[in-house]
């Protein structure tokens, strides 16, 4: 399973684990055992130099910090446009960038509560996205 709407980087072990967990409905980040820094999205090495990392399940609720409605996408994303890209802060303070769906320009507001939902983009692609939280 590949991640996101378009990508060309190799599917590393970390990405295989990440997308496998996504397919099972879990949004997973990593945490450094040495300095406790959390990474969402995950990394396998810490900025402190440590490689002793563990996976953790991230909260799916959060709030919207910023958004933009993209009218002119890159070539590879033409069929999805227009789409809304947003940055949200999850309940544990980590931040994530994704698309937001289920909103209109009128209902879209910075600060609105959101939740992370997981869905397949195509047969071999999976992603997370935000939707308004009730």
């Amino acid at each position, binding site marked *: 399973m590949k*991640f*996101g*709407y*378009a*990508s*060309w*980087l190799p599917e590393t072990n970390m990405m295989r684990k990440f997308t496998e967990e996504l397919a099972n409905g879990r949004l997973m980040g990593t945490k450094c055992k040495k300095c406790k820094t959390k990474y969402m*999205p995950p990394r396998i090495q810490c900025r402190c130099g440590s490689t002793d990392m563990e996976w953790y399940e991230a909260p799916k609720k959060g709030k919207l*910090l*910023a*958004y*933009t*409605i*993209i*009218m*002119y*996408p*890159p*070539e*590879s*994303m033409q069929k*999805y*446009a227009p*789409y809304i*890209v*947003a*940055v949200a802060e999850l309940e544990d303070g980590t*931040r*994530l*960038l*994704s*698309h937001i769906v289920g909103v209109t*320009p009128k209902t879209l507001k*910075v*600060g609105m509560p959101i939740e992370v939902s997981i869905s397949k983009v195509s047969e071999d692609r999976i*992603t997370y996205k935000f939707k308004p939280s009730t």
Partner: protein
Amino acid sequence: MAKKVAVVGIGHSKFGKRPDVTIRELAHEAVFPALEDAGLSAQDIDAVVVGVAGDEFAAQGSCAAVINDYIGMQGKPLYRVEAACATGSAAVRTAWALINSGLAETVLVVGAETMTHVGTPRATELMAKAGDTRWEYPFGVTFPAFYALMATAHMHQYGTTREQLSMVSVKNHKYGAMNPYAHLRKEITLEEAMKSVMICYPLNLYDCCLISDGAAAAVLASEEKAKKLTDTPVWIIGLGAASDNMMIAERESLTSLKATRLAAEQAYKMARIKPEEIDVAVVHDCFTIAEIMAYEDLGFCKKGEGGKFIEEGQSYIGGKIPVNIDGGLKSKGHPLGATGVSMTVEITRQLRGEAGKRQVEGAEIGLSHNIGETGQYCFVHIYKR
């Protein structure tokens, strides 16, 4: 105490759509006027620093070597510097360091880029790849989209309006129309700016800088050389540089560029001046929101009051600090590698009193501010005549 380094020669090509030339000829257009301005010929130059951001745009690998050969500098020490959209300022800083270290007395800096030759869709694609290709590009985040995210956050937090964004564009077009080297020499009205086609909300066409070809050059010299060469040296008295997280979601703020704040602090400290002493500034206005954040992060106004700063006309000639009165990236154009060097050219012109109709009367201290990508690089230089 750092040794003194001055700008002693400047040159600038016409920015714009330039299908008539490739990157080597563009560089030539800027280099020889700069050498002539300095009263030097090729043999007087100790080293060459070339700033080109992307070989893919030029469809030529190792652009620096091609340019160096074409301008007749074979045999000299040659450096290629790259820092995305801040490439030109990184090149100027490198030249300063070469002279300050004693490795060279006189250095030629050349910034050049051709961006229109690959076509707009390809250029958009190349710039989108400046985002994190693991976690950002997979969502189709275009280059303007990163600044649009900062814009919605800024609008929410400080009440900045789309109208205020457009006001930045109106100002930069007003001055760009007076600059013979600018790409789009045309004044626009606030209404035209507000009504232009939406690129990514809240940024419309007139909130975004142009895709341009262009080159700029500067000759930097040690104090001893500079005093022999010219009566009007422009001294670089302060420098600052900083970086930030790669991914926008990880930044500590979405309404301020940390790299600007850090770089500005260093530059003000080194120059021993305060922001209010700046007589004229050129700042990185790749998008209108970027200029508003620059006012705040450089200390020209308080945090959150950037929108008010432009609305009150404080960045026009006659205001508190005239900003981007060469047209800025918005109207002059933003050929990546050339931009930072072009900023040095403009401030030098202003401090020499050679800016014609755009001259800030009696300007003594100038500042240039250049961002790479969406804040991952920043360079601030402070100049004094």
